[in-house]
């Protein structure tokens, strides 16, 4: 029998046939191994029953059936020793934006300006190593990635198919928690699926989320700015640039469709202003 945490709970005032009359508190409980169960919640003080509270299993008489058979079931007792898990683990700074908008440059400058407060979270990936990956990526095999995922060690993951293979990307929960433990704010340079995953794993309130937009009055102008930047960068072939632009269009749409996932949308027209703005916002949160 495993301990668990309360995902949700309800007080049922009219229990079904066969159960003792009167209010019965039932919880949906996430067990240690990630499976969920429903069960009666017990506590000497019902105000201790809260979402996020740790509960311990206990065999208990649940009902007596029509034939007089006494049915025992596992109920869950609120443990006074294990207080409510903190609802708010800490802030994570997230930068999201289309390819070519300047995420990498901004993050490099940020790590010098507010480097003592923030630290970059490495991306775990199954894709092949490239030059310049050292700071950003941790390369692992597809088997290792599947293992991390199965053991629930990833805060979020996404598979992005490429022409040759299925590439996996993700963030390890332990990497993020280690940065918090140092008293710093983890920073992720990320994309929409991973951002969404982080937000549901740690709670939307934990993500200090910035969307980066290329300059331009219309979507077409923005995309053309990106095209020029990608060509100037000279890292990709024309075919790759075409693919990146297609993704960029989806990314820009994402800012409108899922605007609740962003705290600030920033236009990257002048590096200095963007950096000033970003570090200002981050500092506000560090102090508060």
């Amino acid at each position, binding site marked *: 029998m495993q301990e668990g945490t309360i*995902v*949700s*709970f*309800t*007080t*049922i*005032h*009219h*229990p*079904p*046939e066969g*159960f003792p009359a009167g209010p*019965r508190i*039932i*919880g*949906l409980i996430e067990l240690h191994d990630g*499976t*969920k*169960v*429903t*069960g*009666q919640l017990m506590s000497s003080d019902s105000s201790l029953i809260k*979402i996020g509270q740790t509960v311990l299993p206990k065999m208990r008489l*649940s*009902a007596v059936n029509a034939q007089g058979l006494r049915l025992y*079931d596992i109920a869950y007792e609120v443990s006074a020793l294990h207080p409510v898990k903190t609802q708010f683990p800490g802030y994570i700074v997230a930068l999201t934006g289309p390819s070519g908008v300047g995420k990498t440059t901004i993050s490099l400058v940020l790590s010098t300006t507010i480097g003592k407060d923030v630290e970059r979270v490495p991306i775990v990936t199954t894709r092949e190593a490239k030059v310049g990956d050292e700071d950003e990526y941790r390369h692992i095999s597809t088997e290792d990635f599947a293992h991390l995922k199965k053991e629930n060690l990833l805060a979020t993951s996404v598979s992005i198919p490429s022409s040759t293979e299925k590439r996996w990307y993700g963030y390890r929960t332990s990497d993020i928690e280690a940065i918090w433990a140092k008293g710093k704010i983890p920073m992720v340079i990320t994309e929409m699926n991973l951002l969404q995953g982080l937000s*549901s794993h740690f709670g939307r309130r934990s993500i200090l989320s910035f969307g980066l937009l290329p300059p331009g009055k219309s979507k077409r102008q923005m995309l053309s700015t990106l095209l020029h930047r990608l060509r100037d960068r000279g890292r990709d072939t024309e075919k790759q640039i075409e693919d990146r632009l297609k993704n960029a269009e989806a990314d820009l749409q994402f800012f409108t469709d*899922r*605007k*609740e996932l962003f705290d600030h949308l920033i236009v990257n027209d002048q590096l200095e202003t963007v950096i000033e703005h970003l570090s200002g916002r981050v500092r506000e949160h560090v102090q508060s």
Partner: protein
Amino acid sequence: MDEAITSAIENAGCTALDIDTVIVGNMLGEVTNNQAHLGAMAASLLPHHPPSLRAEAACASGSVAVHTACALLESGKAQTILVVGVEKMTDTPAGKIAHALMGAADAEKDAPSGLTFPGIFGLIAQRYMHEYGLSRDRLNIVSALHHKNAVSNPFAQFRNAIPTEKISQSPKVAEPLCMLDCSPISDGAAAVILSTKMESPMSIAASQIASDTVSITDRATLTSFAATKDAMEAALAEASLRREDIDHLELHDCFSIAAIISLEDMGFAEPGQGISLYEKVGPLSINASGGLKACGHPVAATGIKQIIDVSKQLSSSGKAYGLTQNFGGAAATCGIHIIKNTQP
């Protein structure tokens, strides 16, 4: 059931003999009336006893019955089908009905803890309030609006307006849900005639169903229903429409919180924002009939009754498209139908 069938035949302007197939949606016949075999029961109300079958998908039985009818019509197996949803619940003691309705949940994973259906939605509501900060006072607006809408609906079970603040003052059922958050136990029947042979101003532009895990313990989230999302996407694609083209909506408000989550899953509101569509009325009309809360929720009749209500709304407003969303259990089955007014 007889009354619903008779008025459907009258309304369709055909005779009983035109019907070549009967489909009955029903969930609880065995429990409430010791009666199974409802397909043949309905067929025996017609003079020529056409071929018949019964569809069951808990509270989504009605829309699954209509979906089955569409499939038979498209295949050419049938040309004119009587689809009837029926439930007789009020003669059965409340404890027995509550127990029977739990048949829509997972008998091994959900029921043994003593959970009831209001209890499942109590868990969902509690979690939703936790994640999105929805207040109890704002939730009150949902049932209050449904009761207000039902005042002018002669077919509604409860035609009384209820002040918003009274909703959360009603007896507690499964906290945070109160009695007036829950759809009632009802008797009712609804019938439509679907035909590829006859003309009608109303046609079905899309009929889609989708499934999810029966037990809430197998879900990644409590605050969104994947089956609604899947059925909605498929229905819009089938009809080649966008959400904005829909003018009238009848959604499945078995509990007030379900209405809010459904609006979000159908994409009419962002996650966490569903309540805002109840706070500012229009342009989309939502549950103008009074919904399940005020019209009553005779389980299998609901999905068919929604289609009838949306059709009435379309013919009175002259708009082109209406949509119904009907789910069973905690949306382990969801049926979505888009109704097109061919004479707007």
